[in-house]
Every structure is written in structure tokens, then in C-alpha cells.
């Protein structure tokens, strides 16, 4: 019951946050010079004043800003994200098409980074003064310092071109018409490289945080007590240290889950992954305002949800946090 009340409270707080983001973004976007009509006409290579006026009228860009804002708010109140004139389709459809692949890649990268990072940190911390610690530290330093796009390109050269083990890019093999299990394997094969290049940076971060955190905890009194009780080293680690040492890692993960949504643009671009990041980038480049606002709205909601989930994990790890 208390948990439910906590949840309700947090959700209520999220409403003004999302509303604020939406309103702020609307006006921020209109500060950018240039409009969708000029970009579209620019791409066409040739345009007449009549054609550009036609476009501006169709996009509603000939209306005053206050009218555009009013129309936008009215649409939002009806949960209507509007129409992307550049793409000739409703914004909701465009975003939903990309949401699946984005979440798939994001969650995979997130889980891989979290699990592997935590394990590596734990192994490094327990293996101080052995070969394990320096090796893991060096690897995580390299992973931390390597740009994701470079890693992605190098993986393509090695695994797709030289060894021909994995496909270069895309979500699945186009035109193969795979079904059932074959399709799952196909998508997984396409996801190996993007998920790895997206997760490696975070993996390194978690490994380093986890290592420091474990080292800090092992000096605590309760660990000495546990050891004094005669528990084995493994039980001390898994039963006592791990749970407490995880708290800073979860905090870090909560912050970075938001980054993963937007920060995957580069990886999406390199691997031709149909994600939200590239959609947003293209919408910004072409001043497709309705689409851009829609993406902002959806990602704001996603970040709020992810933060909520992280908070719940936090609470289950450390019941003292819940109030």
C-alpha cells in the first residue's frame, strides 16, 4: 500500500515535468532559424515562390506563433501528436515504428552493460593484488576512452567485411521473409555489434564504479562482523557486500538510461538501426516541428518511467529510502 502511494505520488510529480518540457521545447524550437518549407524546397533544388507559399500554408507556418501554439496544445489535450507534413504521415505512427527497435537495442545494451559491468567490478575488487584487477582496469579504461562510432566501424571491418560472421547493418535481413525462430536469430545477429558498441562505454563506467564501491564496503564493520562469524568469502560478497555496493551503480544507471535514448544516435547511424535517435536528428535537420515535439514528448515520458523503475529497484535494494 505504501509502495502504491509512493508510486502515485511520483507519477503525479511527473505530469508538470512533462508539461514543462513540452511547452519549453515548443518555443525553443521556434528560435531555430529556417523552416521546414525552405529545407524541403532546398532539397528539391528548384522552387518557386508559389510552391514555397503553398508549402508554408500546408504546414500551417503562415499562422502566427500564438495560433500555432494554441493548435498544438489543443492537439496535445486530445493526445494527438499531430501530422508530419514532411513525412506525409501521422507523428504517432512514425514514433511507434521506431520505438520497438529503440527499446530493444537500448534495453539489451543496458542489461549487458549493467550485468557485465557489475560482475567485472566485483571480480576486480575481490582480486586486488592479483592479475585480475589491473587487467580489468586497463580494459575498462580502454572501453571508456574509445568512441562508440569508431568501435562500431572497426567491428564492421573485422566481423562483417573480413570474417563475414555478422551482417553490416539494419534490423533484419530485408526480403528474407524469415518467420518465428529464424527471425529472432536474424535480428539477434544484426544486434550484436550495435548493442556491444552502445554498451561498452557504460560497461566500463559500471565496472569502475562497482569496483570502488565494493572496496569501500569491504572495509565496513558489518563485513568484519560477517567474516568474524566465519562465513565464507563468497557468502560475504554475495550476501552482504553486493547488495550495498550496488546502490551507487543503480544511481548511475538511472541517470544514464536517459542518455541511452538520445545517445544512441551515433550507433544508430553507423549500423543503420531504425531508432528514435536518428528520427529526432533528421526531424531537427529538416525543422519537422510536429515530429520533433512528438519525439520530445515520448522520450520525456520514457525517461520519467525509467527513473521510476530505478527508484523502485532502489527501494527494494535499500528499504530505508522509501518514505
Amino acid at each position, binding site marked *: 500500500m505504501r509502495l502504491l502511494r509512493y508510486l502515485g505520488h511520483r507519477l503525479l510529480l511527473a505530469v508538470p515535468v512533462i508539461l514543462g518540457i513540452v511547452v519549453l521545447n515548443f518555443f525553443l524550437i521556434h528560435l531555430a532559424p529556417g523552416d521546414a518549407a525552405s*529545407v524541403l524546397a532546398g532539397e528539391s533544388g528548384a522552387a518557386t515562390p508559389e510552391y*514555397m507559399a503553398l508549402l508554408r500554408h500546408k504546414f500551417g507556418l503562415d499562422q502566427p506563433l500564438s495560433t500555432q501554439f494554441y493548435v498544438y496544445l489543443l492537439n496535445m489535450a486530445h493526445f494527438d501528436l499531430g501530422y508530419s507534413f514532411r513525412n506525409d504521415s501521422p507523428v504517432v505512427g512514425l514514433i511507434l515504428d521506431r520505438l520497438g527497435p529503440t527499446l530493444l537495442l537500448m534495453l539489451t545494451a543496458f542489461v549487458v552493460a549493467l550485468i557485465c559491468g557489475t560482475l567485472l567490478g566485483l571480480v576486480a575488487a575481490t582480486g586486488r593484488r592479483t592479475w585480475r584487477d589491473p587487467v580489468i582496469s586497463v580494459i575498462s579504461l580502454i572501453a571508456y576512452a574509445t568512441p562508440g562510432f569508431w568501435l562500431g566501424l572497426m567491428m564492421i571491418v573485422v566481423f562483417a567485411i573480413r570474417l563475414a560472421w555478422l551482417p553490416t547493418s539494419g*534490423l533484419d535481413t530485408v*526480403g528474407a521473409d524469415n518467420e518465428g525462430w529464424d527471425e529472432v536469430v536474424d535480428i539477434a545477429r544484426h544486434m550484436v555489434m550495435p548493442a556491444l558498441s552502445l554498451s561498452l562505454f557504460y560497461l566500463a563506467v559500471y565496472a569502475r564504479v562497482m569496483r570502488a564501491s565494493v572496496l569501500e564496503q569491504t572495509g565496513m564493520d558489518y563485513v568484519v562482523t560477517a567474516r568474524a562469524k566465519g562465513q565464507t568469502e563468497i557468502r560475504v560478497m554475495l550476501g552482504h557486500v553486493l547488495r550495498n555496493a550496488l546502490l551507487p551503480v543503480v544511481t548511475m544507471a538511472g541517470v544514464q538510461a536517459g542518455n541511452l535514448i538520445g545517445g544512441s544516435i551515433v550507433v544508430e*547511424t553507423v549500423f543503420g538501426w531504425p531508432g528514435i535517435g536518428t*528520427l529526432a536528428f533528421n526531424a531537427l535537420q*529538416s525543422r519537422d516541428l510536429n515530429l520533433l515535439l512528438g519525439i520530445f514528448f515520448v522520450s520525456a515520458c520514457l525517461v520519467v518511467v525509467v527513473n521510476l523503475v530505478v527508484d523502485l529497484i532502489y527501494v527494494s535494494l535499500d528499504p530505508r529510502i522509501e518514505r
Partner: protein
Amino acid sequence: MTDAHFTPAMISRRAALALPLGLATLRAAHAAPEPARGGTMVMIVHPEPSTLAHYAVSAGNIPMIATQVYEGLLTYDWDSKPQPNLAKSWDVAADGKSITFKLQTGVTFHNGAAFTSADVQYSFMEILKKFHPTAPVVLAELTAVETPDAETAIFRLANPAPYIMKALAARDLPIMCKSVFEGTDVMTNPTANKPIGTGPFKFVQWERGQFVRLDRNDKYWKPGLPYLNRIVARFIPDAATRSAAMETGEAHFAGYSAVNYADVARMKTNPILDTTTKGYEMTPALSVLELNSHQPHLDKKEVRQAIAYAIDRTFIRDNVMFGFGQPATGPLSRLFTASGLYTDAVRRFDVPDRLEIANKLLDGAGAPRGADGVRFALHLEVNSFGEQWLRQAEYLKQALAQVGIAVTLRSEDTATWLRRVYTDYDYDISEPFLSQGIDPVVGLNRQYLSSQIRKGVTFVNNSFYSNPEIDRLLGEGRTEIDPVKRGAIYQKVQQILVEDSPLIWLVDVQYVSIFNRKLHNHTTGPLGTYQAFETAWLEK
């Protein structure tokens, strides 16, 4: 850089294989291979189109997909002469003011509707003339399309318009189905992204950010065609990954320089790939510098000529374009040589003592070097459409420094750049890339007519060039139907423009296609990537 079938390396390899097997095999090896049916051809289209409303948006990435679905009245042979397509014959009246088309019979649209002259009439008068971006130029003289019967369409023109006969392929003016559009708002028609045409491939599916899938039209009106079962157009944002997809054989065709010039040399060494520069004969384009003559110094003809002299176009061609293209001589592309419109008998800037001339012109124009060797400073707006333009800008900065002009580069995103250059006019030099269209009426008129100084319109006269003689000559060229007289008019135009140098013309752009050697018959005419792959086939 030739088509696969004529590559010497390939012939010799085949011959070498055939030698030990005797004469019969040798003869077979040289015979044209029999087209195989079926298969999925994957082509790379870059960037992903925002819409497939080919009838209302003329962005260069749309027709690669749209011309598989929509067809035009005509197609063109390697000499850019009209050939039958949806029109089986045509007759241009002696006064040039009407064109009669006899249409193919037994053609159906992908939705089952029969193709008749009513579709031609509706497409031209209700869709293209009202909504196509180039219609106000190309279709300005078209007043009516008459349909005496279902197989005849007669174009009525207010004045002769010799360029219309060059614009009737699907790339420029496609034919849509009347019953799909009638009674709807053309701009929001649901077939914008689900095109319905008469072409060899039917639109099936568009997964945004990934691919467009087109399947074989089993009821296609040309017997036995197409050979392919399916075409998939893939979208890969990253240039290196696009190259990788070609190298691994995942994709079969990358037209329109979807693969960076920088990677082409590496592609050529790959045994499964080959390249061609054919198929772009009707897609002339120039890279240029626009000069804002409302800025100090740039208002003087001598200064503009000095800038033209200071730039080594061959260097740009070799190092920025990686050897593709030709140094430009003036406002028209060399691709207009065959039609007798192009001339290089103009003031030439590629003379050996060009730097001395440039310095002398600048001295004479009242712009002496200061103590630091600098005469004056300018800003250069960097083209936002790709990395090569930044490289070109970096070269230009160096080249102009040689004659004492200090250049500062300014890079902005597309919308900001276009607004600065075509609306706010807050620029000195801009380096756009201008497609020239099917005829000088498209490429020259918008750039040099004084009436085309139009605030807020992109890629028109933003150098404020105004010359009554050019206005008069371009007006004459528009309606002149005698090719010889027309050629003389445009040659005169080029001489005057080069002398005045309102723009600096850098390189006649040459696109390049990369293809997998298993793919045959892909480039069958001057429109190349912009015409249907109806006879293309894949080796098993």
C-alpha cells in the same frame, strides 16, 4: 569507369577461362548472357526520402524508388532522344504549339484501373501543373490537355516550349491514376507514401529508417518484364557502413554517389564490385560559388573575375571530387554539348599566369594589399550537404589567401544556411551545388534572370545579377524551336555570363554508381538510376 560488360579485365578473364575449353566455349563466353528470372535486388538509397510524393516533391532521392512504380509518357535513349513508353508515338506540330501523343493500350495501374488519356490529362493539369516544384517553369506554356479518345492526348501550348519533350520521363513528370486522386486533396493524398502507378514494380511496404520494398508487377504491360522478383531500397545513414554493405555483397547497387567518392577507389579493387559513371547523362549539375554583389568589393566585376582566376578547378576535381567530373568553364554543364548549347569559347580562367592576372585585377579594382598582405576579408558559407564541401571550402580559403583575400569559413545546418543565403542575404560567398535540370530554361533562368531575385526562395538569383541583355536572350531561348538558333542564343549567354562572373563555376559534377558484378543490365539509359530496373537481372 565503364559498364561491366565492356570492362577489359572482365573479358580477358572470361577469355582466359575459356581458352583450355576450346572454341565453342569461347563463343559462348562472348555471347550476351541469358537473363535469369527472379531474385531480390538490394539498392542503397541515400538519404532516405522523407516522402514518396514524387508528383509534388522533386528531391533527388525520391525518383530512385518512385520511377520503379510510376512511368512517364516517354523514356530516352543514350543520345537523350525521346523513346516510346506510355506514349507509343507522338507528333509535335510545326508551329511547336501542340503535341499529339498516341498512348499504349492494355496498360493497367497497380490498383487494376485501366490507363487512358484521362489519366494523362488529370496528371498534367490537376496534379503536376499545380503542385510540381518545376511546373511553373517547365509547364508554364501548357494550357490544356485534350482527350479526343481514350488513346489520344493532345498538349496545347501557349507558346512553343522545346524543353517539354525532354521532361516527359517518369523522373520529371510521372503519370498518376486519376481515380486515386479525383475528389481528394492532392497534398494529403494517402498514396503519397504508397504510390500507385503503371510501372514494373509495385509498392509493398515502407519501414521507415530501414527500407522500401517493391515487388514484381505480374501484370506489367511490357511482355516478360521485369526479370527481378523484388527490389529493396535500403537506407543506411553512415557512409562507411554503406560502403561496407556493398563490399560484403549485402547490397547490389548504390547509385547517385551514395558511396563516397573517397571510397570508390577501394571499391574498384574488390573483385565482386564494379563501377560506372554512365546513367547520369541527363542529370547535369555544377558546383559553384555564389557571390553577393551587394557586399563591398564583390560588386566589382574585376574582383569577381580575380576570384575566378585564383581558383584551380583541376585541383578541386582531383582532390575534393577524387577525380570525378570536369573543371567547369561556365554556367552550362558539358552535358549540353550534344544538344549544341554548350560552348567553351568563353573567357578562360585556367590560364598559366592566372595568379598574376588575379593580383593585377585586384590592384586595379582599388583593393591593394595591406601591410599583412591582406586586401580584404570575406566569409564563406560552407555547404551543409556533406563532408566534401568542407574540404572544398578549406581549399578555397587557401586559394584566395594566395591573392590576398582572407576567407573565414562558416558551417551551419541546412535550414540555417539556406535562410542566411536566400532569405537574409547575410553572406559574401556561398558554395552550393546546383542541379541544372533537363534544359537551360531550368538551370540558367532561375539563376541569372533579374526577375528571379526573390527573397525567401532557395537556389534562385541571390547574387543580385541583373543584365537586360541576359534577360532578353534567356527569354528568346525559351521559345526558340530551331536548334541552331537556340544554340547560338545560349552560347552568347555563356560568353556574357562568364565575362560578368556573377557566380564562379567550379566543377561539372559526375556521379558514380557502384554495383555488384552479379547484377546485369542495371544502367540502360541516360537517366540511369532514375529509370525503372525493368530489364535488370541477377546472376544466380
